[in-house]
């Protein structure tokens, strides 16, 4: 693996940084405060191809790499974690499973609209009684002639009320356990489908996190994604990819908090000098910087493996575990370095600390990541 950026990646970084600074950062506080989905930002992202970075050009995508997609999530999250997760869920949890497991017809039908940003994507696995124990699915799908009929509900669905396409995991044969779980593509306009309550959250408050409700929701047979009974594996594989996206989101949050803290501690004077000149500040910040860079390399290495078809499940888990815990540590200390000001909404580190927490929870808690890593270690 080459640790330096390719020419494309350098140019991409130049573009995405400028985009994040000019288009995303100015809205971040407002999006958080008002719990507002930044649709205007999504439209701008769509215009330059950010909604389909790793999707091949034959399906209307930009034909980029997963490394570039990870850089985009990082740079967006550096200034606004809400925007980062909108892109991550759309790309990793909806576009990717269609690309990896869809039929040619499904790819032709959905990917061009998703990659162009005309449609937004989401993914539904979690249920009130099936979180970390995802096998306990209670949403059921029953065959009825040329259709599948879905009943049940999903919760905590990112992009829920703004998505047009949903990858839904449901039980098709309860007697078979995880082998009786299948995946489906549901469209917003399908009969019997509706959006339930919107969550009020601690962080990433601009992302629309909602419940999805299926009441005799009828979808055509050809909406089954992947093979019958292989939905659990599809969901786990999807989450493996998604975890790198969330790791990049956590990394971005951590980097954003580092940027703010370096700036603040250089400006803030106490006892006659900048607080950046105290060794306590320097040593703590040096440790945090080292962890952020280590997280970046874990993210990059996991995406490199995904780009090159090398198994990356444990790498994704390590990247997410480490980046999420680093984000929580960095943002907590960033607030501390900012003192009383850091606890107010005048400075962004307070928001970053609230945003960081979710990265230790969604798309597999830190405990799940440890299970995945240990599972590989002791197999």
């Amino acid at each position, binding site marked *: 693996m080459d640790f330096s950026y390719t020419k*494309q990646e350098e140019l991409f970084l*130049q*573009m995405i940084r400028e985009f994040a600074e000019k288009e995303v950062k100015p809205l971040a506080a407002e999006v958080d405060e008002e719990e507002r989905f930044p649709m205007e930002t999504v439209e701008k992202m769509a215009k*330059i191809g950010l909604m389909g970075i790793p999707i091949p050009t034959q399906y209307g*995508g*930009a*034909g980029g790499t997963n490394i570039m997609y990870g850089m985009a999530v990082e740079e967006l999250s550096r200034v606004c974690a809400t925007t980062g997760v909108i892109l991550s869920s759309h790309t990793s949890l909806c576009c990717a499973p269609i690309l990896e497991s869809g039929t040619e017809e499904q790819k032709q039908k959905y990917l061009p609209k998703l990659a162009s940003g005309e449609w937004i994507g989401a993914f539904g696995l979690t249920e009130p009684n099936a979180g970390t124990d995802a096998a306990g699915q209670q949403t059921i799908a029953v065959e009825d002639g040329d259709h599948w009929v879905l009943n049940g509900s999903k919760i905590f669905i990112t992009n829920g009320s703004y998505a047009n396409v949903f990858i839904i995991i449901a039980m098709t044969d309860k007697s078979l356990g995880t082998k009786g779980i299948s995946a489906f593509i549901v469209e917003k306009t399908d009969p019997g489908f509706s959006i339930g309550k919107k969550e009020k959250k601690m962080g990433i408050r601009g992302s629309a996190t909602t419940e999805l409700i299926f009441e005799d929701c009828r979808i055509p047979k050809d909406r089954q994604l992947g093979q019958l009974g292989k939905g659990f594996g599809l969901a786990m594989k999807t989450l493996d990819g998604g975890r790198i996206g969330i790791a990049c989101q956590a990394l971005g949050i951590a980097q954003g908090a580092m940027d703010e803290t370096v700036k603040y501690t250089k400006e803030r004077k106490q006892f006659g000098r900048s607080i950046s000149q105290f060794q306590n500040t320097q040593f703590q910040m040096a440790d945090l910087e080292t962890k952020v860079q280590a997280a970046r390399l874990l993210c990059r290495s996991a995406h490199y493996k995904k780009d090159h078809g090398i198994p990356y499940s444990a790498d994704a888990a390590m990247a997410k575990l480490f980046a999420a815990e680093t984000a929580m540590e960095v943002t907590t200390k960033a607030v501390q370095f900012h003192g009383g000001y850091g606890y107010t909404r005048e400075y962004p580190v307070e928001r970053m600390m609230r945003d960081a927490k979710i990265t230790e929870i969604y798309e597999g808690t830190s405990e799940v990541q440890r299970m995945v890593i240990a599972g590989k270690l002791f197999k």
Partner: protein
Amino acid sequence: MKIVVCIKQVPDTTEVKINPQTGTLIREGVPSIMNPDDKGGLEYALQLKDQYGAHVTVITMGLPQAEDILREALAMGVDRAILLTDRKLGGADTLATSSALAGALRTLDFDLIISGRQAIDGDTAQVGPQIAEHLDLPQVSYMEDLQFDEATKTFTIRKQTEEGYQILQMQAPCLVTALASSVKPRYMSVNGIVTAFDREVEVWGADRINVPEDRIGKTGSPTSVFKAFPKQLKPAGETFEVSPEEAVELIVNKLKEKHII
């Protein structure tokens, strides 16, 4: 319609410092960027491409690393990129630069040449107008808006002046110099970036342009730099919100304080 945009790679002067001893720019570690006015000009060209299907070529004269801004231009959507680079062209002042660029432009087809008003490293605003003179083209500088009439091949240009603006018309072929402040350049597209390095950047040497050697490079440059100094920022002014009557008295008193009246 064929458009050629002249662009330049410059140090990002928001990050540049001047060595107080030598009075020269400290360029080490300073990122290089596409000159902002040139990028504004490029955006105008790409808008004409969106509207009328114009073919857009970018050309730059500079060191081999100036290829970076050509790749950026390709990623923004231009059709052709030319890098004019040669040791013989080094050390050029504005006259030698415009001679060389005009030489290159003579070999290209164009209806419109766009350059930036001025580069943020030299701030001369001379190269664009000089190119027009070399090529005997009509020109409008300080362009802040541009419309094209396909039937008459006429450009209607809004030119910024110190007092306001002028509306001027020119027939193709012609040259304009563009202002960065009047337009927001588009972002490079992701696919543009992915494919930018698979596309050709034509590298031209001095032998590709038919310009005598005593008109290019250091030998063709009658100007030399006497001194470079950073721009002095004026302090923020005082603001008063008062009635017109009070304002008159206030201004008179201030002028008296400074012994101006």
